[in-house]
């Protein structure tokens, strides 16, 4: 059964699977992985909110990724977020996909999506990918399930310290929403029945920032990346030293990874290619590749260096 609740309260109290753009929900249903009732959020007022508030920008949960990618205010204040939204999937998917849906989508592991297979995420005993074909899976071992976290927007929103507003007005940060990856059954930790209503972005840094989003991918479209990275840098007044750095990487673990060690190392350094090339390998510290994903460790430093350089292009 499908219902189209007319208010957020009604939606929150309707049992069943929420559907926004439906780009993931429909596939899960088609594959028989979900078959509960559908609660379509189409008629819910307020989910298309787009507000410049005092504490930053509030983006309604239902706003499309195309809009985020193309909106002038987002592009100016949160450039890597806009770039990430415009860089994932295909134009057709981005037109449909909602902000909340992009955060809460399920992993694309083909074992998980196989109708007959009971992997750990579906309550089975083991992660089938770990023993099977995992060429596109994690190279950081952060929990039982080794499917990379699917959400590009999660990485970008984390890099911007965004908060997720729920229907009960509570606010969650991204790491809390996603959890630490140890429970294979949870791709996110939104309590069942809760609704995401908006995402709050804090005001941009007063002195501005240099930012970039990029992905290593062999096929440009219609595929998740081998690794992806959001980079934000703040420079000192003269532009000679890095004041602060924010790097969040996706596609390499069952949750996005914040590269804190590398961030710290970058602070105080001149923003040059020499620095970037020297420090980029720190991005793979602590990595624990699976038998088939060792190659990702060779890709990551190149990606990190490239995106740091791309961010600096904004300074020129």
């Amino acid at each position, binding site marked *: 059964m499908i219902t189209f609740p007319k208010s957020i309260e009604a939606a929150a109290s309707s049992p069943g699977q929420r559907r926004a753009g439906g780009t993931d929900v429909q596939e899960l249903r088609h594959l028989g992985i979900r078959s509960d009732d559908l609660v379509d959020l189409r008629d819910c007022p307020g989910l298309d909110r787009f507000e410049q508030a005092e504490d930053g920008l509030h983006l309604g949960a239902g706003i499309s990724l195309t809009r985020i990618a193309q909106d002038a205010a987002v592009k100016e204040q949160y450039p890597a977020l806009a770039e990430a939204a415009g860089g994932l999937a295909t134009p057709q998917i981005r037109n449909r996909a909602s902000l909340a849906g992009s955060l809460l989508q399920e992993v694309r592991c*083909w074992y998980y999506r196989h109708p007959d297979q009971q992997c750990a995420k579906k309550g089975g005993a083991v992660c089938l990918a770990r023993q099977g074909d995992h060429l596109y899976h994690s190279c950081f071992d952060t929990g039982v399930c080794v499917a990379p976290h699917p959400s590009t927007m999660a990485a970008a929103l984390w890099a911007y310290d965004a908060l997720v507003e729920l229907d009960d007005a509570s606010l969650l940060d991204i790491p809390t929403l996603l959890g630490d990856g140890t429970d294979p059954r949870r791709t996110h930790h939104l309590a069942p029945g809760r609704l995401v209503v908006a995402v709050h972005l804090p005001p941009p840094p007063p002195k501005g920032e240099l930012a970039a989003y990029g992905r290593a991918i062999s096929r440009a479209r219609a595929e998740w990346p081998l690794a992806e990275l959001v980079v934000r840098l703040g420079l000192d007044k003269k532009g000679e030293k890095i004041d602060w750095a924010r790097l969040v990487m996706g596609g390499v673990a069952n949750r996005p990874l914040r590269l804190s060690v590398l961030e710290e190392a970058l602070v105080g350094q001149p923003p040059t290619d020499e620095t970037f090339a020297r420090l980029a390998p720190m991005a793979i510290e602590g990595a624990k590749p699976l038998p088939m994903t060792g190659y990702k460790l060779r890709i990551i430093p190149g990606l990190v260096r490239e995106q740091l350089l791309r961010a600096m292009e904004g300074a020129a």
Partner: protein
Amino acid sequence: MQCGFCQPGMILSAHALLEKTASPSREEITAALGGNLCRCTGYTKIVEAVQRVARSEDISKGLVQGPPAEGFSILGARARKPDGIGKAVGELPYTDDIALPRMLHGRILRSPYAHARILSIDLSQALALPGVYAAVVGADLPKAYCVIPWTPDETALCTDKVRYVGDGVAAVAAVDEETADAALALIKVEYEVLAPVLDLDTAEKAAGVPVHERDWKGRPRLDNLCKEVALSFGEVDEGFAAAAAVVEGEWFYEGSSHAPIEPHCAIGTWDALGRLTLYSSTQVPHYLQRALSEVLEVPLDRVRVVRPAIGGAFGGKSEPFDLELCAALLSKRAGRPVKILYTREEVFLAHRGRHPMEMKLRVGASADGKITAVENDLRLDGGAYHSFGMVTTWYSGQLLTGPVHLPAYRFRSRRFYTNKPCCGPKRGHGTVQPRFALECALDELSEKLGIDPIDLRRRNALVSGDETINGQSIPSLGLLQCLERVETLSGWKERRGKLPFGKGLGVACSMYISGTAYPIHPTELPQSGVMLSADRSGIVRVACGAADIGQGSDAMLMTVVSEVLGIDPDAVRVESQDTDRAPVDLGSYSSRVTLMCGIAAQEAAMGMRQAMISALAGAWQVDEARIGVGPGSWFDLQDPGRHVGVAEVLRLAEIAAGRPLVSAGGFRTRKLGGKYQGGTIGASPAYSTTAHVAEVSVDPETGIVTVDKLWAAHDCGRALLPTLVEGQIEGSTAMGLGEALFEAHTVDSRGLLAQPSLLEACLGTSVETPPIVASIVETIDPVGPFGAKEAGEGPLHSTIPAIANAIHDAVGVRIRRTPFSPERVLAALKEQGRC
């Protein structure tokens, strides 16, 4: 447009783009179409179409869009396909668009195990579910079949064993798909699980239970060897002894699937007289008709196959499939029409795609770059059944002997059964893999000998009239022209070897058959028949069973008839969809249709033309030699002011004959090929040839390969319809690019298919498909209709080695395994010490 299945979606995306951006760049167009897959066109013509609309070009509404080749009235003209507009607006039905009254929907239960015995199947609960009308198991259709009549090794549903994850076990018909799915969940199957055979080494060792425990004659079988062929021509050992340089190595070509955008679909229905009609998305209506007749035990004349519009096939719909046989039987049992539509996963499980092939190849050459000997030892991973396997095994050896001359050649090719989805014929059947190995080896040879790779190929080129070492005679071959064309277009001489590290150019060439002299079912009957009949309204009907799978065989028939009769193509109506109404053509495979149906159509049209000439000469009381034909009207050569419309000529001819004007033509097979066992396999009436140059960028840090541009020159004899020939070159090249860089069809350690959806199958999108420059070379073949030969498969082959060779030129590593994915390129760079 080719099959047209993607067109409505493309048009919507293009429209959305043009509403926002009036004159988009190429990048903007490819980005906007990035979410719409097309499997046929390589996106080239689609991007061009968007550019033409953006430029507000005045596009005429007529079928013919440009001038014909010199001396012709329509041949060689830019023309629309007769089904183009209908498909673009979604008017022409594909099989799944058809809904018959009272129609049920069927689904097939598939094996979760790669290898297991079926101990029991219990349908009772499924049959008891409300809304379920019929359920069948393997024992209901026990007759084994195969598209190749000598090797029947599969049944519509498994009878004793399942042989891959996805093998069909039972089928159900119900009021809708959901109910049918619910019924499948209620079927209880007891299995005894066996150890699966999942790779070539295990298959060859034959340690456990073989995939097939009996052969098709019922004799016990102890190994997994499905077919072995070994042949030797010329003095191979002497050739190697005389070689100044030898390249030797092991190449591996990964499997891949056709992935037509339209999934397979079939509808079965029986009439009150007990006649079966089966609608199906098939490229071989005739073989399907035969299989239905044999397996269901219905006489051939009581089986009718209707082929609606087809949304792409590429070899993936060229044999009978379980859904067709099950739809027919379920419909009989239920007393209602039954439709079965494959899910995307089922399309990949039905497969019959490219064989994974391991090739141990050795090539020797003299100091001046002349090949002295070639030796190849191949193992083919065939999957669970035979399919066209016997042909694939022969082709993998027999079709390598041109377009570069091999003076001495030896091969052994062995196809093994494994517990995987069955491999079969994919575009370029059997030869894309060894061609990859040979063309890469030639590149290595040219490096060793210090000879430019294009020159090396020139020094070994076969030309028109030559015969290959294995006895195939080649009426026409434009390899030298193709090489020169891509050399010039790509700026090879000026740029090759001078590009910076990370950028490179590579070349390769290939040859392919235009049909086979030896049909699948040996027969003295013609391989193809065409019936023409004229109507007094002024139209000419062309009946021919050729399956238009998007490649444009209807357009080809229309053009040939229109040319011969000088009639407006719009007045030519092709009837090719119904076995009750059109004479047999064996099917759209082996690149045979243009040549064989074209010749049959030409013959039929010449017959009608003669009757028309006689009638008009009689009416005008002039000598027949004075009658001039078309375009549009017929005239008196000595008095051009005297002319008459074709419709009037048809009327006069009908009056003169006193009966409707009809005429038939056929393509009769001539004996061709070498006089040894297997000598006829690969013997073709004509051969096409192709050369490719690829330009690539390789990122040494990420291993990501980007193809920047592809030039393809293809000798198709004569381009009857140049736009369609270019479309085939572009589409083949793009499909080759996908196999080179992205695509695979593999299973994991339990036999689960690792690419069950379009996402994992990784077809190239418009974004990573670079500009493809398709260039037509015409050698006017002495056999083909008006000199035409194939264009639909040949231009795939050399794409892959051209890219591999370009990667070497860019970063200095040889990649001997497809696809050239980032992790492989990185590994090669590391191993070969390049970074």
